[in-house]
């Protein structure tokens, strides 16, 4: 049986093969799954906010898309991953509540997705699949065997991307 590692909110984990990395109940947060196609080292981050630049408290790097991706890549390289072999899959960034005034807070899911994509682009990590947006939560599982990402929802089906 594979080793299952749970990633909390504003948390990130990485591991060598074999394992399953999972994070539960992504809403506006974004799950960022990285996979080294050769070494099968995997990494998963559950970020809450787009950028560390606007925050007073930056002690937890896993909370922000920009700093979390950097740290995740570093951790994976330390486990034997090669930066050039990394691919990414992302999920989440939903808008759970629809307020009439589309304030900053309510569009946070979209902003998290944009910031995640910008950071991955900057690091030249290709996004090969995504399941983002909508108005529902997602639970994801990342398999080190082949890098597949299982996305589970309530009432919006289950899929593998």
């Amino acid at each position, binding site marked *: 049986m594979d080793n299952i590692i749970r990633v909390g909110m504003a948390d990130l984990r990485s591991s060598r093969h074999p394992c399953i990395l999972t994070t539960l109940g992504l809403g506006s947060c974004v799950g960022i799954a990285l996979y080294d196609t050769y070494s099968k080292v995997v990494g998963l981050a559950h970020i809450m906010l787009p950028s560390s630049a606007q925050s007073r408290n930056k002690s937890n790097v896993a909370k922000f898309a920009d700093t979390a991706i950097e740290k995740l890549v570093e951790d994976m390289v330390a486990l034997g991953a090669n930066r050039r072999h990394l691919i990414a899959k992302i999920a989440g960034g939903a808008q759970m509540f629809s307020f009439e005034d589309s304030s900053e807070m309510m569009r946070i899911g979209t902003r998290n997705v944009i910031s995640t994509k910008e950071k991955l682009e900057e690091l030249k990590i290709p996004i090969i699949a995504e399941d983002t947006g909508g108005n529902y*939560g997602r*639970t994801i599982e990342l398999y080190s065997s082949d890098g597949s990402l299982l996305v589970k929802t309530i009432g919006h089906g289950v899929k593998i991307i």
Partner: protein
Amino acid sequence: MFFDINDLNNMHIDVLKEIGNIGAGNAATALAKMLGRKVDMEVPKVRIVEFKDVSDILGGAEMIVVGILLKVYGNIKGNILFILQIDAAHILVNMLLGKPLESKDDFNEIEISALKEIGNILTGSYISALSGLTGLDIKPSVPNLAIDMAGAIISVPAIEFGKIGDNVLYIETEFKEGSNRVIGDFFLIPDIESYEIMLRALGVLG
């Protein structure tokens, strides 16, 4: 001086607990009126909790819950989130609309409106407790409702608050109507300046 949520001492927390007690009492009365039945409540549990533990309190991040989110305006700003377990939501709606209590069909439009109204009235009870004790003007927005995984719902106010800290005022109230028990989880998430305004208005912050 910059106020830090982590500097809340026991006296501050006791005052916030008192708001929780009065608010829950108001909520039980409001619920009784709405349902036309006698509603009792247990002494509410009031705690300051970290966001990362909130999903566990609610039974796990994947637990399906009804989340009712309101914004508050006026002298203080922030969010209020009221969570009902899906079974509890069914019981309340069935009581309100006179359906058999064990009915668990998917909520229709009228039932969703009823749930919003329940959320409105219950959160209004906590707000009036807070407003009454502090003398502050606090107005709620219209309620917004989502039925989904607890983790996904919690993430909305958690993100808003994540910019400044990781703690939230949590009030768990158990309402009892005959043999029916319904637990409502109430989360008050003011922005950091509002915490300070609240505590000053209560006279516990110099």
